[in-house]
């Protein structure tokens, strides 16, 4: 560390000349900066980039190869993996990242700066949304170009369900992060919820052939309804009206997630002292 140059020693007049308070930094600009920072960090983090881009592509490639030529099965996995991608881009990554940010003390550090909470949350949310759109886009494009699945029949319905999925799963992810005690146990908590859900929600196979018990359980889960809505929009060209129950269930989960996310929020890791 070095001495301060004399030119900075005249901090007094400079401080006095500043009109503090009146010239806060615009919160919209700060949200945009936070978003760009999150994007940059996403691409620099190998595991995030892997789970965000390579995993949905890989699953699509594997199941696409297995189901090659069987249009009915391909029509299941394209909306299925699209729905799974929305969940992993929002729920999984927010639960995991917030736990880590809290444990590392980064949230506490940010709390001590002038960064408005709204700007920070907006930046995080925009980043999760961008990842969800990126992954759904990859799935649709590869599904069409490689496996010959038709382009979505109802783009509006697709947009509505992607948005509903992003909001609900993002809020649920934030809520779950409060329950995770430390980053080491985060994968266990997240996968305990994520894995069973993608297995029974009709991501990889048509649930009509599943036993009733599994179908009943699946009906209560948000991913099932997201996949149903996406399937209607992508495969059957059905509008939002045809799947309003699915939208309602997603909204209910979103409300539950929202309440838990806000009530449980903590900027600091639980520590003694």
């Amino acid at each position, binding site marked *: 560390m070095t001495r*301060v140059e004399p030119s900075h020693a005249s*901090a007094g007049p400079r401080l006095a000349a500043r009109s503090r308070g009146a010239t*806060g*930094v615009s919160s919209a600009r700060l949200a945009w900066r936070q978003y760009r920072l999150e994007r940059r960090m996403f691409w620099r983090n190998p595991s995030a980039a892997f789970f965000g881009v390579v995993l949905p592509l890989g699953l699509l490639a594997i199941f696409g190869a297995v189901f090659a030529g069987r249009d009915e099965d391909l029509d299941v996995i394209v909306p299925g993996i699209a729905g799974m991608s929305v969940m992993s881009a929002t729920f999984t990554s927010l639960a995991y990242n917030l736990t880590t940010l809290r444990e*590392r003390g980064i949230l506490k550090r940010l709390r001590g*700066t002038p960064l408005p909470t709204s700007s920070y949350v907006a930046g995080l949310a925009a980043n999760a949304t961008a990842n969800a759109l990126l992954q759904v886009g990859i799935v649709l494009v590869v599904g069409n170009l490689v496996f010959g699945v038709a382009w979505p029949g109802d783009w509006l319905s697709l947009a509505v369900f992607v948005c509903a999925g992003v909001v609900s799963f993002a809020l649920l992810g934030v809520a779950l992060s409060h329950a995770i005690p430390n980053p080491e146990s985060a994968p266990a908590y997240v996968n305990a919820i994520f894995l069973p859900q993608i297995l029974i929600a009709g991501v990889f196979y048509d649930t009509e052939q599943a036993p009733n018990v599994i179908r009943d359980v699946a009906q209560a889960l948000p991913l099932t309804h997201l996949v149903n809505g996406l399937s209607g929009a992508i495969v059957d060209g059905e509008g939002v009206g045809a799947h309003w129950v699915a939208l309602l269930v997603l909204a209910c989960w979103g409300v539950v997630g929202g309440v838990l996310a806000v009530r449980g929020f903590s900027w600091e890791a639980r520590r003694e002292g």
Partner: protein
Amino acid sequence: MMEAMTAIQVTGLTKAYGSNEALRGVDFTVARGEVFGLLGPNGAGKTTTVEVLEGYRRRDAGAVEVLGFDPGTRPAALRERVGIVLQSCGTYPHLTVAETLEHFAALYPAPRRVDEVIALAGLEECAKRRARTLSGGQARRLDFALALIGDPELVFLDEPTTGFDPGARRAAWDVIRALRDLGKTVVLTTHYLDEAQTLADRVAILQGGLIVAEGPPDQLGASRYRVSWRAADGSVEERFTEDPTALLAQLTADALARGERLEELSVTRPSLEDVYLELTEAVA
């Protein structure tokens, strides 16, 4: 005291965690431009006090004013003027030192220049390295740099040199002295009494949620002198007095009358460490 001269005013501050009364009525004032040291053993309430001032914790009772604001309401105008070095606090692992500082600089209305802060914190060699590759000492320098990037008027340093090697500590001390030379107010909590003795204009010793002593570090307990010598039977004798002149006159007269010498006679003013240990051990 004039409002403009006071950086921090704390009156009757209390804070309890459940049944544990962490702060039981803390009062102190920090003047602008002063380096104020807050000392005390673990659990004495140092961090709780500082975190109330920083706006991280809500107080139960008492009045607290920081740069004229109530930190409990977390006003943005206050956060723009305060820099914080927390005890253990990470940064984004995938960003370089320079990128991290650029990002945080943008949060403040009138930040210092990034290259200037990098030089101030001694991070020139690591500016292009990602934060996760930094050593512990380098990460701590980044903490310093992040606290200074907004060009704050007031800087909180919570045990800033814990875990530093001696060279890094000296370097950190230079930064703190530089802050004082810039006219910044610094609130420093520390375990290291030499650190407080060297850097602080004034210290307060916190014990059991109360301030038990306050003043310039070399004047704490200055009224009590310790006089010691080795008696004729070989044992070490010691006396404490507020008037060493009279005590010495009496001791030497008695010794001469007995035909003895006062071997190893010494008169010492208690160091900050003596005062600290006496106060914190007596109560504990």
